[in-house]
């Protein structure tokens, strides 16, 4: 007497046997070596990028600190001569600015601060990844030129945020 097994069972047994046989299959050791090498490359590239950003932030912090110093000296020395200058010309400026974007030290608490306007090398902003080329105002229009930026600097000298400015200046002689 015979016991019939359905085709489904035969198929299921065969598939299970194939799955069992193949469970030990794996990619060649060369693939593992290549993938691990790719991992090392990615990690190295990521570290290089981080170092570039950190050094760029350092340069920016120094530039901002210098700009703050210069700004304070100028404000002390301006006084009457500043009034005289404003008698001669009426400076009308229309500005388009981006929103303030946080910088690396934006998380550091701030008690007081200043907004410092400065010209920043375009190349350094490219390294930040913060350069919207169609918004910023360039001095020479070239990639190697400068862009105008307002930087919020805390009383500790650390830059907290930056915005970029497009400025159209019109000077009229006052009668």
């Amino acid at each position, binding site marked *: 007497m015979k*016991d019939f097994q*359905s085709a489904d069972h035969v198929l299921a047994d065969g*598939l299970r*046997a*194939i799955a069992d046989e*193949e469970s030990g299959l794996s*990619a060649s050791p060369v693939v593992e070596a290549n993938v*691990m090498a790719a991992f090392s490359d990615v990690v190295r590239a990521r570290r290089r990028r981080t170092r570039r950003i950190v050094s760029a932030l350092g340069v920016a912090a120094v530039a901002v600190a210098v700009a703050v110093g210069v700004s304070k000296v100028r404000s002390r020395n301006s006084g009457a001569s500043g009034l005289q200058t404003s008698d001669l010309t009426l400076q009308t400026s229309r500005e388009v600015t981006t929103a303030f974007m946080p910088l690396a030290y934006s998380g550091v608490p701030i008690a007081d601060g200043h907004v410092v306007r400065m010209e920043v090398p375009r190349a350094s902003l490219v390294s930040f990844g913060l350069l919207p080329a169609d918004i910023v105002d360039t001095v020479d229009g070239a990639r190697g030129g400068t862009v105008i930026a307002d930087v919020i600097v805390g009383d500790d000298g650390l830059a907290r945020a930056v915005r970029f400015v497009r400025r159209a200046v019109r000077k009229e002689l006052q009668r």
Partner: protein
Amino acid sequence: MDDDGLLDRVKRGDRQAFSHLYALYQSAIYRYAAHMCGAAAADDVVQDTFVAMLRQPARFDPARGTILSYLLGIARHHVTKRLASGGHESPLDVDGPPGDGGGVVDPIAADDTPLDVLSREQLVAQLRDAIQSLPPAYREAIVLCELQELDYATAAAIMSCPIGTVRSRLHRAKALLTAKLAAIHRAPLVVTRPTR
């Protein structure tokens, strides 16, 4: 460690974690790729899959599935490109004509089949050939749901199709395999066993 924690360590540049992740999942990807586009290309698919994951590790969303399904999804993308460039097989997402053996499955009725004398090895070898001859969309359903034993939902996520489509492709694939095996022996696929 769960998938998310493992991938977090990989993102932080932990070489040991990446090595562990590779060891865990390379075999499944290799087996899938070997069935879909041949053993020769499977190594390349494994490599491309892990390199792609390395470049964009943030694209993995644990809410959408496991790392395995994420990696198999990447692998499927590379397999699809290879199948498309090969030009000899239809794309994975097309339920085209099933090709040879795609007709009506022979009814299972007779008991004078030669399969009862087939060794297990013969059956497995013939089944392998039959799987390879399936259209890619059906083969993929068999590989994922039967050989990799993934559930329908996971397979559907990998195949980018509804669960119902996975079910129907799997059903169709099994019917085709049955028909192919039966055709080899010119008899319906029925195995007899003596009673104990």
